[in-house]
């Protein structure tokens, strides 16, 4: 066998890079649409950039280590080397190098992603109000957070959606309820409150680069700004039970006018109170 095994190890980086390269060519054979889905959110590119940066970074290291591994296997194959084995005991320089480089890399990622994290998870949209000192844009400014347009409740196995309704408050009698059907206005910052009825779910909007674990007992906010109209998937990204795959919803992004119309229609459907038998029966 001999060097055959080292060739197997060489196949790892070659195939790995090959698969990624094929997937990136999203319009061609053999891996159609296996790369990132269409980005329809305003800040989605930030996540994409972060993803790509980390992918290239780890990609280079992956290819580098795989090639090094291959080279050692090839060069020091037992059947080709008859000389005695040499052992090394400790190399201070080497240890420092292989500690500093990863540490620096991680530090770079940590700093590089800070804004993206803050945008996605901390800086909830809202209006700044003057603080206690009566002046704006100082440290003690109050923020009136934008209230959620809807509450999305994950349960085994569907997404129950509850729009704030006319009073703009979720949890009142005029809420509009739908299942697996989320409509949102385009070009507006939207805030969604997400929660779970039962187990851990993860609210995932692939096209908006938004993914948030839904933890039972926690009310969490997610926000984004859709910039294209269309119909997109809502999926669950946390294996939540046997029906995990069934938690597929649809997010429809439409103009403000269409959205308002749809919400009014839903309200009328929900207020349905009459029923007549059809004529021909």
């Amino acid at each position, binding site marked *: 066998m001999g060097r055959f095994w080292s060739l197997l190890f060489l196949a790892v980086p070659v195939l790995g890079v090959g698969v990624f390269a094929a997937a990136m060519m999203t319009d061609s054979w053999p891996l159609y649409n296996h790369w990132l889905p269409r980005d329809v959110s305003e800040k989605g590119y930030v996540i994409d950039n972060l993803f790509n940066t980390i992918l290239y970074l780890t990609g280079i290291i992956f290819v580098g280590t795989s090639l090094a591994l291959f080279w050692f296997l090839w060069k020091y194959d037992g059947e080709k080397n008859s000389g005695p084995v040499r052992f090394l005991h400790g190399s201070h320089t080497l240890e420092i190098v292989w500690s500093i480089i990863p540490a620096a890399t991680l530090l770079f990622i940590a700093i590089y992603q800070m804004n993206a994290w803050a945008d996605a998870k901390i800086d909830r949209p809202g209006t700044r109000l003057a603080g206690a000192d009566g002046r704006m844009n100082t440290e003690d400014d109050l923020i009136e957070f934008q209230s959620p347009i809807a509450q999305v409740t994950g349960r085994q196995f569907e997404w129950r959606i509850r729009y704030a309704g006319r009073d703009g408050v979720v949890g009142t009698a005029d809420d509009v309820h739908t299942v697996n059907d989320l409509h949102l206005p385009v070009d507006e910052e939207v805030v969604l409150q997400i929660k779970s009825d039962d187990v851990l779910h993860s609210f995932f909007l692939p096209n908006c680069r938004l993914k948030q674990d839904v933890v039972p007992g926690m009310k969490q906010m997610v926000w984004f700004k859709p910039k294209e109209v269309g119909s997109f998937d809502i999926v669950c990204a946390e294996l939540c039970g046997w029906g995990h795959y069934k938690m597929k919803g649809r997010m429809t992004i439409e103009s403000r006018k269409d959205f308002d119309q749809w919400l*009014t229609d839903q309200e009328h459907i929900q207020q349905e*109170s009459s029923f007549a038998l059809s004529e021909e*029966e």
Partner: protein
Amino acid sequence: MSCCLQPCLTSLGESNPMKRLRIFWALLSMPMIGLMAGCGTESPDFRVNSVYMEKISRELEVKFDGQRQEDVYTALTAMFGTPDLPVVTGGQDVGVTELLNVDNLAMAAGPVIKDYEAGKGLYRQHCAHCHGVTGDGYGPTAKFLNPYPRDFRMGTFKFKSTPVGYRPTDDDLTRIVRNGINGTAMPSFKEMLDSGQIDAIVDYVKYLALRGQTERSLISLSGDYGYETPEETADTQAELLSKEVLVDDILGSIVEEWTTAGETATEAEGRNPIYDFSSTEFDQGELDESIARGQQLYYGAGACVTCHGPTQLGDGQTTDYDNWTKDFFGEAAKVADPELLDAYLSAGGLPPRNIIPRNLRQGVYRGGRRPIDIYWRVKNGIDGTPMPAASSQLTDDDVWDIVNFVLSIPFQSLSQPADMPEFARDRN
């Protein structure tokens, strides 16, 4: 599988490395083949209704074994086919074609086909793991769910527009499949399936209900016949396994219940728009008055308080059972009979659970939250459960007052029970 591994293991002492490698791969692949071949290659069959047979055999003191049982299931298989090939033989003579679309049955039945050949095996892909291949509510996940999945075989469905004792309409079943049942494990299939696929599943559910109801009729009828001597057996078979009995009598009357369901749906003229906040005529004052009247009815003539409790928490009557359980036991008290319970469980019944009145404070409405849905629940009662229809003494306006009250309960504060009439507290 294990016995064929044995020689392979002993030959591991093989010295030729190439040969050893081959043995290695062979061994490695075996569990994989085992994994693929071990499960589910045999096409599933309909389960027999052992619980009902146990019930009838206790009532009529007959045994459902040997020829008697075989005749029942020969007839049933001849009439309804198998899970892979559903048919309703002779059904065209009694109007099954009005009820079901044969193409739809083919779409919903059969094994699950790969995604890109979708449109086959829908029932087994989406429904069978809870409701079972037979539609007996005994799928693999059934015992982990609360409430248990619906057993279609009695033809009884809870959330529908028709009164107690009548079959649901197509629209009722479609609504459940589309919207799911909030508060239970039944999910919404609105985004998973297109409307044609949902129609197919609804037709297949009706097919399973027809089959289940026919099975029950056949079992109870068969209990009336004798199988003691060969002559008696021949007489019984000639009479029971005939088109008159199977198709004209049994299937005919069951199909008629279903085809006429659409005419029996309860009509509603609609709630006064002054109660509807989305209407221009909305009047909060009127709504508040209606809610107050509804509250009076809740404690009074509606008698809702007896089961849903003085604080609407659903804690008034918690010891009853639903019809699917009481079908075997006869009455709630008999569930405690250890001998009967044992017979029920060993015949394959799921451990009985009490049916609990809805906690109206949660705002979770299983049959839908539209006023018309709540109206149907109050006006018609809920089939298969102890929930009775509102008294026919109550007018439509009374029922709408109750509906308005029910819809307002989740938004009331529990800490203000001041409006509760005194007499309601004296009960219990």
